[in-house]
């Protein structure tokens, strides 16, 4: 088999790399909007893996394609809810860094 780039393992690597990059963003970003944005990066990677699985292995029915539609629908709702919460935080405190949501917890 010739060395080929466009195949299942490579696509999966790309999608997992996106997941990891996104999670790095989740760890690091202080702004909650940017955390949400990082999660979109992860979701993008997951969607990529869905579509590539469908194409490379099970190319008879487009199952992943509608899973993709559902997933971006969910992503939209999550973004809407998350962003509206961010707006509430901003209205209440004029601050949307993650400090704002790190107050509860054990102060033993």
């Amino acid at each position, binding site marked *: 088999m010739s060395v080929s780039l466009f195949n299942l393992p490579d696509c999966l690597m790309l999608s997992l790399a996106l997941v990891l990059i996104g*999670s790095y963003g*989740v760890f690091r970003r202080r702004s909650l909007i940017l955390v949400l944005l990082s999660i979109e990066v992860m979701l993008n990677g997951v969607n990529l893996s869905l579509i590539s699985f469908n194409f490379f292995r099970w190319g008879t029915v487009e199952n992943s394609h509608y899973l993709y539609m559902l997933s971006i629908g969910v992503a939209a709702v999550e973004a809407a809810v998350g962003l509206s919460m961010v707006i509430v935080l901003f209205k209440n405190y004029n601050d949307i860094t993650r400090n704002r949501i790190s107050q509860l917890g*054990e102060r033993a």
Partner: protein
Amino acid sequence: MNPWLLLLIPLLPGLSAALLALLGGRLPYNAIGGLAAAAAGGSFAIVLSFCGAGVFGAGQPIDFDAGPWIATQGFQAGLHLHLDSISLCMCLLVTFFGFLISVYSIGYMRHDSEQGRFFASLNLFVASMLTLVLADNLVLIFLGWEGVGLCSYLLIGHYWRQKDVPLAAFRAFFVNRIGDVFFLLGVFSMFSLFGTVSLSELAAHGPTLASIHSGQAALAAFFLLGGAFAKSAQAPLHVWLADAMAGPTPVSALIHAATMVTAGVYLLARLDWLYAVSPEARLIVAICALVTLVLGAVLALVQTDIKKILAYSTLSNLALMFLALAAGSTGAGMLHLFGHAFFKALLFLAAGSVIVAAHHEQDVRNLRGVLKKLPVTNIAFLVGCIGGAGLIPYLAAGFFSKEAVLGAIEEAEFSGFGFTLSGRLVHAIVVAVETLSVVYLFRLYGYLRSDAIAPEIPRPAPGDHTPAAHASHALHADSNSDHHDAGRHGGAIKETSPAIRLVLGILILAAPVFGVLSASRAFGGKGFIWSIITGGGAEPEGVSLIHALPFLIANIALAGLVFAAFSNTKRREALLGRLKGLKLGAYGPLSRKFYFDDLYEAVIVVPLKAAAYLSRLILENVFTGIITVTGWLGLGLSLGLRRLQTGKVHQYAVAVLLAIFILAFYLGGH
């Protein structure tokens, strides 16, 4: 009859008990007592309705099986109620006295501050006792057994604010627990031997099996005996009954005279086939009962507390029942159980009336002549004394039953362990002791009818709970008087509540009725109750009126003599002076209750206390240390682990991601 009604018999007082326990504080007094009496009365009515169902005698028993209660693969114990002739009689007894005494208590407890608790316990007692009586298997009996023990404890401890009362209650409870352990062991060994705990199955298959494994059967019989002895206060385990008199008097009448203490007798009567095949057990029963008989009668002679005299008399009479059982005559034992219930309840209730009238004074020396002011109580006391002493046939509830017991003993032979106790010897001892019963009862009656009214009857001020009042009572030797609510009455001695008089009247009439019904053929009676109990079994020959006449006349004469001696101050002083010269009462074994308490003190209490002290030492210094350190460690660990919850969302995200990826890695690696 509808078998479901059987369930209602114990359920009615049980529900009432629950109701009273929950709402006792809120209800008006008459409602509390009324509810309790109504529940017991309702139960009585149901039991009466069963009388016409042909259960009596050799009739068909009625069974009610409410399904399994405890069921495992090998072990079955159902909620199975069984009504046969004996249990119907017992039910009649329990509900009749339960009802009467509930009514009586309405009068007696009028000024108590904790009536709700009292009547709840009383009803619970009736329910438990009925469960015990009706149960078809030993496990259900044990439930009732524990229930009556608990209620006994609660009721003895009713006046828990007084100094010695909690101790007395605890003592009763403790001794009963010892008995319960034996009882349980008995149940276990019965199950291991026969593979069932159902009384009816046991009665059907038991005798043959028991005769094969006679050794094991004897062991089971011994264990059950331990339980029965504790509950019925027989010789080595009798110490609690006298102390139990610390409870209110109606309780003493119901629990510690008429019903609960007879549970042991009842148990042995239900298992008479078991004792029929183990003569050793019967021998032990006979010896212990004999000891108790003598002990009770002798101690009753020297007591000065009115209730304790009656308590020791109860001891003695219970021993009589056990002797009859040991002699193999269940009928005689049960007959005396009923007869005893009638006269002893009467005596106790009359004594209660005296005590209330005398503002909770219990020392007979201070109660001189009280009865002269109390006409109804006077008659009641007299009828009770005659019944207890078995003086006049037909009138006395106890005459024919004692006669039957004596007849049974005379014919019997007690042997075992290579040792034989002749029935005639026992008979002779019993007859001698029975004359003592004449003496102590009429000594008591003599005191109460004495010519001079004692000036010492205290009349404390209303609401008296001062230490001074306690001190004045403590002067009288171990008086566990009911003076908790003393002094509310005030004024002179007179008949108190109409409820009390009503109940006394009913019982005065009931005693001769029972006397006539129990009359044996030899006296021209029909042996009615005997035939009911035994299902038409042969009546013992018994002495005829002609043969008994000399004895009777002698006893009546003795009673007259004793009464005459004690009712006249001069004669009494002279007699007591002479007796004091013998130094019997002051220092001898009598005042120490034959050293039983001391023995228990030395054998059980002191080692237990030492062990407790030792464990406390060890616990406090070693285990507590370990526990404390562990607690600190735990708290420290907890505080440390709680720091994991930093509250920082990105750290949580890292933790979650790590966990999920490691999980995926682990799963993918296989």
